[in-house]
């Protein structure tokens, strides 16, 4: 145990991820089936939007492949979040069961430990599946695969995962006051996975405003996609807002982390 603490956080994290992958590989066939199903599922979701669009041509001026980019950017970030830091999702349960206390008495940062312990590293292949879809849609939508665009995409992806993490961390902190947040988490998941797949202007000025300024989920995929696709005329506020995504992510992360620490200072165990 003492040795464990001598390794740096990065090695510790990678080591945990390896263990988690090995654990999952016990059900090898199911694992490959799952990976393939992710590929098929993403493709099917986009195909269905394609079916709609062959009758309706465009959603708010976005073509099928543009929607495909929008969708897969979101899916990639969402799956990335689940792969690398889904631990925050469990904090609510851990408060209820008292499991969280174990993580609070170690010398490592509890948030880091929880994230590493419950990372779903085996999902990395799912991310690859989604990335394939994204690459396909991007090429169809005419996005150039230049180093600049790839770097831009990497920045957007990291920001999107960070936005996910920050918002779920806020919910997890609320859970420290022994509120049940599972319903809220489901709501958030629904908003991200079901609603963000379409351009936000279809939700009207109010919806777009809320998703930009109140809960800035539009920075997960909408503004980045608009920037990558160089959409100009039909983007709420403007496509260059995509460049603000890393800034938004950093601000959110900072605020959420402060809130989390504040919550921990007041945390009283449920005692179970």
């Amino acid at each position, binding site marked *: 145990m003492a040795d464990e603490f001598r390794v740096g956080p990065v090695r510790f994290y990678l080591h945990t991820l390896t263990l988690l992958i090995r654990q999952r590989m016990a*059900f090898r*066939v*199911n*694992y490959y*089936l*799952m990976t393939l*199903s*992710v590929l*098929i*599922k993403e493709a*099917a*979701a986009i*195909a*269905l939007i394609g*079916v*709609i669009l*062959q*009758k*309706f041509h465009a*959603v*708010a001026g976005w073509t099928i492949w543009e929607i495909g980019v929008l969708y897969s950017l979101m899916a990639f970030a969402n799956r990335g979040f689940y792969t690398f830091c889904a631990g925050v999702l469990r904090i609510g349960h851990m408060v209820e069961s008292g499991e969280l206390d174990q993580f609070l008495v170690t010398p490592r940062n509890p948030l880091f430990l929880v994230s590493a312990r419950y990372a779903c590293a085996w999902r990395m292949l799912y991310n690859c599946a989604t990335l394939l879809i994204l690459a396909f849609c991007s090429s169809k939508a005419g996005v150039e695969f230049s180093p600049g665009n790839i770097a831009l995409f990497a920045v957007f992806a990291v920001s999107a995962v960070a936005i996910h993490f920050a918002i779920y961390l806020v919910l997890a902190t609320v859970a420290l006051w022994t*509120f*049940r947040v*599972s*319903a*809220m988490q*489901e*709501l958030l998941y*629904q*908003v991200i996975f*079901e*609603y963000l797949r*379409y351009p936000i202007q*279809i*939700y*009207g000025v109010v*919806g777009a405003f809320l998703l930009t300024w109140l809960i800035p989920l539009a920075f997960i995929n909408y503004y980045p996609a608009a920037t990558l696709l160089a959409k100009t005329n039909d983007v709420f506020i403007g496509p260059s807002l995509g460049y603000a995504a890393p800034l938004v992510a950093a601000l959110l992360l900072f605020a959420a982390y402060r809130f989390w620490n504040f919550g921990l200072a007041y945390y009283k165990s449920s005692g179970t």
Partner: protein
Amino acid sequence: MKYLAATLRLQFRTTLTFRFDLAVTVLRNVLTVCCLFALWTALFTGRTAVAGIDKNTMILYAVASTILGVFLSMRVENNMAESIHKGNIALMLARPIAYPLSLFMDAVANTIVNAVTRIFPYLIAAVIGFCLAECAGMRITGWLVISIALSYILMFLYQVLFGSLVFWTMDIAGLIEYRDVVMMLFSGAIVPLYFFPDWLFRMAMFLPFQAIYHTPLSIMIGRIDGSDAAMAVGLQLAWIVVLSLIARLVWRRAVRRVIVHGG
């Protein structure tokens, strides 16, 4: 006195968390309905009807499909997978009630709970939505009721068939994903089959999945009625017969496998 106060406080808290959950669920459903409104309104701008379906009918279809989805959500495969993992299956098979029947009862109980906690909030949301949009044209006929009941049985059979695979694969999570994809594509749950290209529409009509969503929803929006509705319901019945025969066959083989495991 102190005890009473404590009990009351506890009760109050439980109700409160329940209410909070319920409030969030209602909010979620309102959002779902709003989203469907927004999406189809955006799609229909500048169009009156596509494939013979106008905007209001489409919104009605989409919302009804969502509610039907909640009604049809049963966790039969998960139930089966769980009893196999835990080894309960041996007990289940030894019970005086046939296992598939007990699964069906579980599913019905689950649906009733769902009806209270999930469908009811949807209905509130939907009613509010339709009042706003003055959406008309919903037809509740005898055929609709029968057809929804048959959809339920079909969905159950489909899940039992899929769930039986767990006897061979031992884990179900990956397989359920496939089931969802097939369902999503060919049942008409998300996009009406009427919007499909011709060849895909014809293909979907040959599969059992259209009998689960497409049939009751088409009856509801008045797209098929009279003798056509009777035909569609007949087709549902035929699928029930076919699927139960297959399920029976698969089930027998599966049970034999359990005996092998336990022996």
